[in-house]
């Protein structure tokens, strides 16, 4: 029997019940209230105890049930933008709403000057290049032939995304929208360009979006980015930029339902 079959056989054997510790070793002395209950019953109880109603519906009620327990999110766009901004604030993400493309270009120029960028990287043949037209610094268009040590040296990586999540202040991106796996994590500053229409209310909505957009052919890599990289491993003191970017900036284009979507085919 190969290892796969032997593990699966043990799993099935274990689930058939009746091999619990009390059964294997005979009736123990003393009363722990549960040892005399048949294993079948115990099994049922351990599930039931979790909350019968809940466990029966959770498989079918999908996002509705989860939404009842997760942190509350306003229904309207303005409220969601405000919540996203508030989350960014406490996460130390810089959040820059912009009216249109021209405003984005101007913001990126300001950012570049303020941070003293020497170079930027962005996905090849994306609309991001056009937004960077007025930046007169080195530009690396990331493609299959990009060398990772070069990417490591750039001042900032600029990417699109799949969604922004108001509930958590997160950016959802994939190997497709994020220009691969490395661009959004290797450079010291990550700038995300999102359109207002990409803002979703909460985590269940973000997963629904992923399913709708990609299933069954999901990108090999998808990540929820919630603030710049951080650690508390030394005396639990918060330090930003442990291994990933020290800075995270989210640029939002347009008002409700509007804006340009970057990184979409």
């Amino acid at each position, binding site marked *: 029997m190969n*290892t*796969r079959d*032997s*593990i*699966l056989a*043990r*799993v099935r054997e*274990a*689930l058939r019940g009746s*091999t619990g*510790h*009390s059964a294997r*070793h005979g009736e*123990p*002395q*003393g009363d722990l209230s549960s040892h005399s209950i048949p294993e079948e019953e115990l*099994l049922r109880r*351990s*599930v039931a105890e*979790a*909350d019968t109603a*809940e466990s029966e519906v959770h498989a079918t009620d*999908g996002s509705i049930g*989860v939404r*009842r*327990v*997760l*942190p509350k999110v306003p229904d309207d766009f303005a409220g969601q933008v405000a919540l996203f901004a508030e989350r960014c604030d406490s996460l130390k993400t810089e959040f820059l709403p912009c009216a249109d493309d021209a405003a984005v270009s101007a913001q990126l120029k300001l950012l570049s000057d303020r941070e003293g960028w020497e170079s930027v990287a962005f*996905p090849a043949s994306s609309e991001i290049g056009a937004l960077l037209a007025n930046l007169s610094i080195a530009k690396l268009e990331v*493609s299959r032939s990009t060398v990772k040590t070069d990417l490591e040296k750039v001042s900032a990586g600029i990417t699109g995304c799949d969604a922004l999540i108001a509930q*958590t202040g997160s950016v959802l991106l994939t190997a*497709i929208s994020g220009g*691969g*796996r*490395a661009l959004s*994590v*290797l450079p010291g500053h990550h700038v995300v360009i999102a359109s207002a229409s990409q803002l979703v209310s*909460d*985590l269940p909505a973000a*997963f629904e979006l*992923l399913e709708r957009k990609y299933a069954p052919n*999901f*990108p*090999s*890599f998808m*990540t*929820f980015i*919630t603030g710049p*990289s951080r*650690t*508390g*491993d*030394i005396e*639990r*003191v918060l*330090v930003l*930029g*442990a*291994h*990933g970017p020290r800075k995270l900036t989210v640029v939002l284009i347009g008002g409700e339902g509007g804006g340009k979507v970057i990184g979409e085919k």
Partner: protein
Amino acid sequence: MPSAASQFNTDATRMVADLGHRQMVQLSLSGYQKARTGNANRFQDWESARSRAAAIKDEAILHLDRYLEQFEEKLVARGAKVFWANDAVEARAYILDLARAKQARAIVKSKTMVSEEIHLNEALEKAGFQVVESDLGEFIVQLRHEPPYHIVFPAMHLTRGQISDLFQQKLGAAPTSDPEALTMTARKALRQAYLAADMGITGANFAVAETGMISITENEGNARLTSALPKTHVVLLGIEKILPRLADLSLFLPMLATAGTGQQLTCYNSLVGGPRSLEEIDGPEEMHVVLLDNGRTRLLADAEQRDSLRCIRCGACLNVCPIFRNVGGHAYGTTYQGPIGSVITPHLRGLQSWQHLSQASSLCGACTETCPVKIDLHHHLLQNRRNGVAEKGSPFQQIGFKAFAFVVNRPRLFGFAVQAMKCFAPLQRLFDATPADPVWPWTKSRVLPSFARKSFRDLWKQRTT
């Protein structure tokens, strides 16, 4: 070698006397407590969230065979390789062979408790591979040749001064008392490791059966780099990590962050479902997933305690445990410390050698109350005690309890025994808490309660007459 139990007694006694260490641990955890409570309160209904999470995990566990097969099928369809390992030996052998076949010189790892469980680093280093832990806390304890102190905060026991000394010694860094400067030293050293590594090894927090993906929760970005840059990505995970559906993560990700670190969501929650695909520009060429049993099916077979397989390794039960907070993580001598470690280690490594951990508990139930997936931890500690005695009690336990049962089943004999003890009590007082005290094992660290002037039986008699 002393037995695990006597080693535990020695270490625990030493640590409890170390006041500085205890203060350090309390201080580290005080911020966590506040943040955690704050974030649990953001949930509309944290208690229902716990019930849901427990029910979803139960669903996965009760159909584990089916979900494991589905997970494998989906993952393989996307070009990953899946290896099933019965135990630590098989898991290590597979990864060693792979490292040899890939001619990996440098291996970078991100935090995975399963690799501690199977002692992967030692095996790889012995075979001549260079292995670097990339999680900051893990990196620090690796430099100190120590196991992690806590499943979530591996270097929680160290002061910045100790870490600075360590970095001076091992990395030639300048002395500093600034956590940020220390972090940057590690960042620089580790950047080189990522870029040079041919193989990256990560764990996984969840394995999604529906879509064949692993989910990694982290704050630093080291797991992202480890799974992005090297040519080969190896994932090591226990078979209990399964979740049925992708959407289940919308509950589990924020719950893990809240219970684990007191965050609403950790910085990076990444889903990896295979090596890079054709239209993607980077990522590993190969992804290997090692599914490990190593005693988990034994736990599954124990219907009374199989809810322990719900564990998402958030570490919350350690943080609230009065025993953990006083003896510290290293005294346990196990991969998994704290209440969950005391519950599952007897199943993973043998009841007789590890049941002493279940004795080291006041059964206060703080762990059960805090656990995000509602594992009945403190009752399992009690069950381990029962099982340990039922299986093979010590001669003292066997004779002692038999004698006790004999006496208490005979009212007159019991009354006589109580009287005899009362007479004996003043004699004991003479030697109280000295080595000459016949009940010295008790009185050396506790006070012997004195007999009430009237026993319950006396009072009862008075009442009825």
